[in-house]
């Protein structure tokens, strides 16, 4: 039986469905997270149990991020976000770095940001925070180790004659699947999706970037795939004068 036989238009209901689903899932996530917090605050908690609780927290936060990403991209595509305006990039980077530690409480994350404290204005709206966060989350998720080191460079760049601010996130331990560098950036979605792994965050980031005229690239640190390391590069349209 098809959807039409039910007199049901899936396209027009998709937005409502996503909204309701998102709301209910996030409500459940809220409860689980808070109970985990209560468990972790218990004085009789041993190290091993704490680690399990931290891992559960991380997974719940990741699922919440996926829902939020869906809703943010849908809002952007539906023209429900603010107009592009000059926006300071560094507060978004700082916020994303802090959120990263809440998302992965069980991992030791060191984000080295250069330059520190300088001004970098880009054309963006409220999606910028989510975009930067998704780039950093991907740099963490591609790394299997507990100690994560991300080198973040923010530099001015000229691309095709236009001024940009470029964020370059480098993780020398991350393993980037070939699907991320090959299929994700092609004009058409790949037919064989069975090997599409660890791509959701980057795919969302790419869609978010497009809505504000930015551009995202993912690459191996050393071409050839024999050694670990990945580089995620985000080019944002520059709003301040050089």
């Amino acid at each position, binding site marked *: 039986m098809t959807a039409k036989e039910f007199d049901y238009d899936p396209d027009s209901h998709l937005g409502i469905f996503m909204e309701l689903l998102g709301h209910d899932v996030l409500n459940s996530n809220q409860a689980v997270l808070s*109970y985990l917090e209560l468990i972790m605050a218990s004085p009789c908690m041993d190290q091993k149990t704490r680690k399990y609780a931290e891992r559960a927290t991380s997974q719940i936060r990741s699922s919440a991020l996926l829902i939020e990403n869906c809703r943010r991209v849908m809002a952007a595509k539906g023209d429900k976000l603010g107009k592009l305006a000059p926006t300071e990039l560094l507060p978004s980077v700082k916020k994303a770095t802090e959120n990263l530690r809440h998302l992965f409480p069980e991992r030791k994350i060191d984000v080295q940001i250069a330059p520190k404290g300088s001004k970098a204005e880009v054309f963006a709206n409220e999606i910028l925070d989510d975009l930067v966060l998704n780039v950093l989350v991907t740099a963490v998720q591609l790394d299997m180790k507990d100690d994560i080191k991300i080198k973040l460079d923010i530099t001015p760049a000229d691309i095709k004659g236009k001024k940009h601010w470029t964020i370059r996130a480098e993780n020398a331990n991350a393993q980037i699947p070939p699907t991320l560098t090959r299929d994700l950036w092609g004009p058409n979605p790949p037919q064989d999706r069975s090997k599409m792994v660890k791509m959701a965050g980057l795919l969302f980031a790419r869609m978010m970037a497009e809505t504000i005229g930015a551009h995202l690239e993912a690459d191996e640190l050393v071409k050839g795939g024999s050694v670990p390391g990945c580089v995620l590069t985000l080019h944002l349209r520059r709003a301040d004068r050089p």
Partner: protein
Amino acid sequence: MTSVLIVDDELFIVELYRDILQLRGYRVIGTAFDGEEAVRKYSASNDKPDIIIMDHRMPVMNGVEATKEIVRMNPTQKVIFVSADILVEKEAREAGAKEFLPKPFRMDDLIEKMERLSTP
């Protein structure tokens, strides 16, 4: 002791907030399961809460509408808006909410905002 009114349509969320806030030393003086009940209880109460924790998506009357009503009755009322809908922040602030927290949040973040609002 800072007093709180909790407004959320999910019983498990209301109970959770109540347990945690009481553990942290707050006085929960009431709960409501939709915006209309919150407005009715607020209006009838002689003991107004210092802080209201307000959800958005609720039956009968949503959080933005309830916040508007309550702030109209008392423009100094402090409302912390908590919602799984991140896109409602602007509306919530325009309705009079002093703070906004997207769900899911850490209880420490809620407590931090409550402490900030409790400080004269």
